[in-house]
């Protein structure tokens, strides 16, 4: 059942994960926007520049295309600097989907805007990539 503070999107990559949200309004590239050693966002085109994606539920409107994205997502996983889950607006690139399946990072698509408008950074979200359900675990908003 979907609660008032819950969201239902389209499950793209299986798996369940929870973590604090990190909300972006700009498309994200796993090749180039992030330092795999630290998880720091370094891309000049991302509004997350200066923040860190490690352990976060990354909420992005879209992923920017690169055939190499899967490798960088997998490298984030190898370094322990990966987002625990990804929520997108548009369907992510096939390469991102492949990297997420390989790395066990669930993805839910089709609701980045709705979530981005309803929550703030650090709200704890529980993402189920099988059902597409996203639950607000700990709403820190007043």
């Amino acid at each position, binding site marked *: 059942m979907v609660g008032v503070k819950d969201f239902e999107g389209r499950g*793209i990559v299986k798996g369940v994960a929870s973590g604090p949200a990190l909300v972006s309004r700009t498309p994200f590239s796993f090749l180039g926007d992030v330092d*795999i050693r630290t998880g720091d966002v370094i891309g000049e085109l991302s509004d997350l520049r200066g923040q860190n994606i490690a352990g976060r539920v990354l909420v992005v409107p879209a992923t920017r*295309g690169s055939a190499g994205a899967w*490798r960088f997502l997998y*490298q984030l996983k190898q*370094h322990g600097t990966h987002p625990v889950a990804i929520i997108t607006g548009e369907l992510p*690139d*096939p*390469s991102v989907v492949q990297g997420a399946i*390989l790395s066990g990072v669930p993805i839910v698509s089709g609701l980045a805007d709705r979530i981005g408008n309803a929550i703030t950074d650090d709200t704890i979200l529980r993402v189920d990539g099988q059902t597409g359900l996203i639950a607000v675990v700990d709403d820190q908003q007043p």
Partner: protein
Amino acid sequence: MRLSARDKALLDGADGDVNRQAMDALVQLGEAFDAEDMVDIGYAHVHAGMAMYLGDVELMEELAERGARMSVPASTNIANADMENWQATKAPESLVRLQKRAETAHLSMGTGGCFTCTPYWAGHWPTWNTHMASIESGVTIFSNSILGARSNRDGFFAVYAGMTGRYPRFGLHLDENRTPTHRVVVEAAPSGTADFTVLGYAIGAHVTNAVPLVTGLGRRPNLDELDALGVGMATSGGVAMFILPGVTPPYTDKDETLGDRLPSILVRERDLRAVYDDFCTGEENGFDIVHLGCPHASFEEMKHYAQLLDGKTVKSDVELWITTNRTVRQMARDSGLLKPIQASGAKVISDTCPISCHFARTCSPDPSLGVEPPKLRTIVVDSAKQARYIRDMIHCPTLLTTTEKAVETAVSGTFVPRW
């Protein structure tokens, strides 16, 4: 998603856990992109396992140890070190030893180990309507646009496709996505591979994810130029297929009119100049390396380099790198082409290239390998693809010019620009 009896059997583990994992991953991919079913593939160009990336060679070793085998003809993508001649690039031996472990894994999986971004020059030549999977975007665009095979821009899952012989039917596996979305009118006279990478780069930057119909070239480009055109587009955009009427199967010269009602893009000589200018950021006397062979050179290109270098000497403080695949290197050796090249002081390197070797600063290899990227001032290149990734991955300035002028540059020690 509709699955065949064999797909279901693989999912149930009938062919072992490693094939269950592969099929499960392909089904997830197919469901994400609304594939109705799976197609039989006839070829896969798969990940090498890259020593510069943490845990990446181990990924391939694990598959091999768990019994993964290629069920269709397969080739390996570019690697992080020349496994025969690594001393020429000053690669740390520890890195080469790790890279060779990936080669061993592929041997046991039955992959044709050519370790190249141009497996077609090594004899992997998929034909019209062959469904395939490819990890390398340059192979994808060459296969779709020149050979008429059907490939998406894949990542790691090309290896799962190679193991199972199956791939979800979406993207460029469907007829409806193999029709033009944009018309490109070329009002310039590109000549040679450097110009064609630049033309492709200019087109890709305009159309991003699209299927451009290219008109106005006025002649049929040679195979190396066609290769360069696709590689350029795949680098600046997400282009996986272009249509050149009369070249791209099944489009004929008459199909130029298919572009009449599509959004139109004009590419003039000044647009090509702008790409060259963007990638000329280094100092004309301050370069360390001149590089030819991006993507990995064909036999025809090796002939061209041998002619250009015959009787010449590369300037003493400059390195001239020629990168090709190991099959073409052997053909060039057998044909006597390596003699004039090596007599000039140029280095012929296989399995890797500047952006794929230990120069990259965006990788994070196992610290125990002791990889330290050298400090480079500038690299001179004849390919917009190499230039783009030198900027993004080596973080070093470039100078972009034609093949012929890059050779002049290496011999004289002073950069010779395209214009």
